[in-house]
């Protein structure tokens, strides 16, 4: 074969390869580019403008960001979001851990029980939020009825500014308990039995064995639950929209709810985009801090 013929052959092979790359990648690359990356850059551009989605955009530079950061409303929605996370995370983690440890024992009908705890995870937030709104109905809901029977005070739940966020926390913890349980169960099953046995031989009791062996060895799963819960927690929206609508009088408005209102209720697309980038930055920062901090407390075997 001559040198030129070999070169041409190689070029043809390269062309063929490029064609195959195109065939296999285009079906995913085009939609991701058009419906994810392009709107992402568009959103960054829009956030630098004043825009009601009808008249032409007006350049304001970082004005939207400055307005948002100096507005009390922004701090309020973020503090509500944070309050939600602070209530939700410990509740769902402690509950999930308790059930995971219990269901890791040899119990009768264990498979069924695991499945039962998991059912709420697969249902839609809107349906579940409506069910909880009804359960927590202040006047004729089941929860207040039961509280009344045992003589406890009956809060106004989602109609009361103090109880609106706790209502959402309660419903969210109920829905996500099964998810946390599954992650922690998988973690528990990955702990080598020999370590447990060694601890038993050393005379460690059940309680001691859990706190000084099982719990530290479970830390990768714990870490995962915390990271995912924080990411999802900052983006809480569906259940708030359905249960409280952000009310009463804004008492439970969260960051994403505010973004939705700004864009689709008040027609302030620029401010809405800016707020969504601030939220994104917060989530990114919180996740980065956790990734960095994990060395201090997460044990990787």
């Amino acid at each position, binding site marked *: 074969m001559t040198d030129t013929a070999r070169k041409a052959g190689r070029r043809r092979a390269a062309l063929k390869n490029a064609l195959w790359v195109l065939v296999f990648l285009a079906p*995913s690359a085009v939609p991701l580019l058009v*419906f994810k990356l392009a709107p992402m850059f568009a959103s960054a551009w829009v956030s630098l403008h004043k825009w009601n989605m009808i008249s032409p955009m007006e350049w304001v530079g970082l004005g939207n960001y400055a307005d948002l950061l100096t507005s009390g409303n922004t701090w309020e929605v973020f503090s509500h979001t944070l309050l939600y996370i602070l209530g939700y995370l410990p509740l769902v983690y402690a509950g999930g851990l308790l059930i995971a440890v*219990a269901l890791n024992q040899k119990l009768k009908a264990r498979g069924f029980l695991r499945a039962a*705890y998991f059912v709420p995870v*697969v249902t839609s937030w809107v349906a579940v939020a409506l069910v909880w*709104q009804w359960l927590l109905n202040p006047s*004729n809901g089941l929860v207040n009825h039961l509280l009344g029977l045992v003589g406890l005070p009956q809060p106004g739940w989602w109609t009361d500014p103090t109880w609106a966020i706790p209502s959402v926390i309660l419903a969210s913890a*109920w829905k996500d308990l099964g998810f946390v349980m599954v992650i922690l169960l998988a973690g528990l099953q990955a702990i080598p039995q020999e370590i447990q046995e060694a601890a038993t031989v050393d005379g460690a009791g059940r309680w001691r064995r859990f706190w000084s062996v099982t719990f530290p060895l479970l830390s990768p799963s714990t870490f995962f639950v915390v990271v995912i819960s924080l990411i999802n927690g900052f983006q809480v929206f*569906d259940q708030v929209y359905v249960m409280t609508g952000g009310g009463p009088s804004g008492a439970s408005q969260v960051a994403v709810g505010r973004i*939705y209102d700004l864009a689709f209720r008040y027609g302030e697309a620029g401010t809405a985009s800016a707020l969504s980038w601030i939220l994104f930055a917060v989530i990114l920062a919180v996740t980065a801090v956790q990734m960095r901090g994990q060395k201090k407390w997460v044990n990787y075997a």
Partner: protein
Amino acid sequence: MRDKTRGASLPLGRALLWIAVALGAAVMLFPFLWTVITSITPQGNLSGGPSLFVKDPTLSAYAELFESIPVGRIVANSLAIAVASTLLQLVTGSMAAYAFSRLAFKGKQFVFGCYLATLMIPLQVLVAPLFMMLTRMHLNDTYFALLAPNIASAFGIFLLKQAVDGVPKELDEAARLDGAGHLRIFGRVVVPLVKPAMAALTVFAFMESWNSFLWPLVVIRSPELMTLPLGLSYLQGQFTTDWNIVMAGSVVSILPIVVVYLFAQKHIIAGMAHTGLK
């Protein structure tokens, strides 16, 4: 499943533990039972205080539900969109996974990085510009608008790529020696071997589409294009105190996904445990 911790040593202790866990499970399932009970309670009895035993149970709430919103159409919409987006994600995802795992090309790392970047953008960053873009294309308030953000999912591609990476390359070589091209290797060798990962992606994609709310809320206006979560939210606005009707709607929305779950339970729980995605 293997047991790594030992069970309670005392039979009594174990019995007590079982009772506690079973009671907990009953508490978890009770809201569903309550939803069904409320949906068959006559409207007049709802204000009288809750009762487990329904006097004169009736299906009138379901009748009213079917009269006030096009339930059949709404369920069909949810189903069609969920099935379409799942199929699209499986096809686009497995093809991209093959490309990233098996084809050599310049800038592969960069392209894969761009894919992963789309995974990190929260939906709320995209809603306003995506809404505007679709409005300009006159595609708002259409089925296509509902599907658009879910044609390809970086999460699915990532999941499938990990699975394809696990398929031994020797199998490709053997097929190539037999004269198979990329399409044959992809369809006959790789895809059949990553079925478990595709099953997991099927479950995630279906659930996500079936339950999604924010995006349909933004792009859909016409009642005949509504999906279930939208229909439910609309119902809540229409019947603020008719809890039996709202709960009938919840039953209609919850029942199909719970049935799917009961059939695919093992895949779902295993898939969740491995990838940890909600």
